[in-house]
């Protein structure tokens, strides 16, 4: 089958079209997902193709949106419930972490919740504190949830399909600032398994674990470092719950130095968990402490000059890797 260049948002959209065509139990609800196609155009064309029964605009009511998804999933449908911005996850939090995540376990396995929540996260758009967050660490911390963070158009399609096919409550976080990024995407319907990282670039001197939008930044940094003969391995975990620790640890045992980079706040971010696991499993292979590069302990600021300083970028990733390797 052929592969061609699609944008991240179009790849996601194509995945939605194809999976909804394949599985009649899949339906989509959310604010402005039907008539408008979603504020980021993630859902363009779905209302036209599948009609109002399967693609519905909701009132502004996040608890009801997600709760409806929970109830419908408990009855065997495959809902896709959209939360326009990841920051709104707080409004629906009870239904996500107390209901969807726990029903399988507290009911002794009697009920499954094959619910998919889509949302858009990340900063860099001058959208300020309540429309710019990366909250994957909150969700990855809840047993029963799965969390996917596609960083390429290929993965945006494969992970939404994988999430919808998965019988567990799954959150797929699209990166707002990557919607226009282009990449190769196969035409056919495919899914990506969860808990499987990719090695986006092989290397030997240091490992970078890059979460979501930090992947392209890490690759840029790796290019710059390669010009100086520094060979960096870049890993994209793709999902943070489940997390492919083995791939990361194998890489660290090879390179002996690792930097984890993410947009989310550093304290208690997913990098802290990865760091703990790496030092547990690769302690004797570390030539330097596990390093993290992430946002400072502040809400996302509005002013572009502040937001640029807040979110890690290729230049700072490069600088962090050089520090990991420095010898005097």
């Amino acid at each position: 089958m052929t592969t061609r260049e699609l944008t991240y948002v179009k790849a996601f959209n194509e995945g939605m079209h194809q999976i909804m065509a394949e599985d009649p139990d899949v339906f989509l609800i959310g604010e402005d997902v039907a008539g408008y196609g979603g504020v980021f155009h993630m859902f363009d064309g779905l209302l036209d193709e599948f009609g109002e029964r399967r693609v519905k605009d909701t009132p502004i009511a996040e608890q009801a949106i997600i709760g409806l998804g929970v109830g419908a999933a408990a009855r065997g449908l495959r809902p896709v419930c959209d939360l326009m911005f990841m920051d709104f996850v707080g409004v629906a939090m009870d239904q996500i972490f107390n209901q969807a995540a726990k029903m399988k376990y507290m009911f002794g396995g009697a009920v499954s919740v094959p619910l998919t929540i889509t949302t858009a996260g990340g900063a860099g758009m001058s959208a300020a504190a309540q429309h710019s967050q990366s909250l994957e660490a909150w969700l990855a911390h809840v047993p029963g949830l799965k969390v996917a963070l596609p960083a390429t158009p290929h993965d945006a399609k494969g992970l939404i399909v994988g999430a919808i096919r998965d019988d567990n409550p799954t959150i797929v976080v699209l990166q707002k600032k990557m919607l226009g990024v282009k990449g190769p995407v196969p035409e056919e319907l495919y899914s990506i398994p969860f808990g499987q990282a990719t090695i986006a670039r092989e290397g030997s001197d240091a490992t970078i674990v890059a979460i979501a939008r930090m992947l392209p930044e890490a690759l840029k940094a790796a290019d710059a470092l390669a010009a100086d003969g520094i060979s960096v391995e870049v890993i994209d975990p793709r999902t943070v719950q489940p997390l492919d620790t083995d791939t990361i640890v194998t890489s660290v045992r090879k390179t002996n130095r690792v930097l984890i980079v993410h947009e989310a706040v550093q304290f208690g971010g997913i990098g802290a968990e990865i760091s703990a696991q790496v030092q547990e499993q690769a302690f004797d292979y570390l030539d330097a402490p596990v390093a993290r590069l992430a946002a400072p302990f502040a809400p996302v600021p509005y002013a572009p000059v502040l937001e640029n300083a807040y979110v890690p970028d290729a230049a700072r990733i490069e600088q962090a890797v050089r520090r990991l390797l420095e010898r005097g």
Partner: protein
Amino acid sequence: MTTSTDVEVTPATRELVLDLHRRMVRIRRFEESSGKLVETGEMPGFLHLYVGQEAVAAGVMSVLTDADQITSTHRGHGHAIAKGAEFRPMFAELYAKTTGYCKGRGGSMHIVDTSRGMLGANAIVGGGIPIAIGAAFASQYRDDGTVAVSFFGDGATNIGAFHESVNMAAVWNLPCIFVIENNGYAEFTSQERHMKLTDIAERASSYGIPGVIVDGMDALAVRQVALEAVERAKRGEGPTLIEAKTYRFFDHQGIKGMRIPYRDAAEVEAWKSRDAIRLIETIGVERGLATAEEFAAIWAEVEADIQDGIDFARTSPDPDPADILDDVYTA
């Protein structure tokens, strides 16, 4: 907004009276027995007992089938039993055994029986309401003629999830029935201290749906009102908000509970004098539909079933800590 005095109650039949009676007695005896077992320490945790409110559960469930779905609250035993849940797996769950409805994983506040359309008790106030509209959405999506019923208390009508869910069910005409069991208290706070309304059914007009008030101690009246709401839903006319005025005879949790008196003794006695089970027995006998002996036989039958359930639970195996990670995810 209508009240049950406006509604014509269709004549009761013998089968109906005995059926309602059996459901209510089963609830009553299960709650009293399990309440005692927790107070003696034989069962772990704590319980929220439904004693006094039996007519609401019995009346509504008597018009539902196993395919219709319900969601419930932390005070969910009554709903589960009225929907057909069996004593053995219920006691076993409260005793935290592997033979319980939740394999000992959930306990009192998470009782579930999907074979009877019971989508789980819920420990978060208002947590079950959005889930019920999801179940109703599935009914509508599949066009299978089933409905969903959400049970919750007066306190839950103040939480955001109630408002969002009723509104969404209304605007989408979901076949969902919302049943407020108004027992006058949100935990330890009386109704007039947690809202300005006296009749919560008035909130229905905020969503453009009908609100109905019913005497929650009269199982036949509850049934009538529920039947009409279910038929409305099946006709595609959307949700109904039913407010059943009722009372719980025990504390918020447990039998003696916190032992802090916050309810007037006279108030309690007044409601107890309108005991729903005694009421249906009276109606049955007065209308010549059933005899005192038949009612007594039901009490005895239930008693035997209770003992059987307790014995079963006591001798069932405990869960194995080695299995602690089972069922976190669906494979």
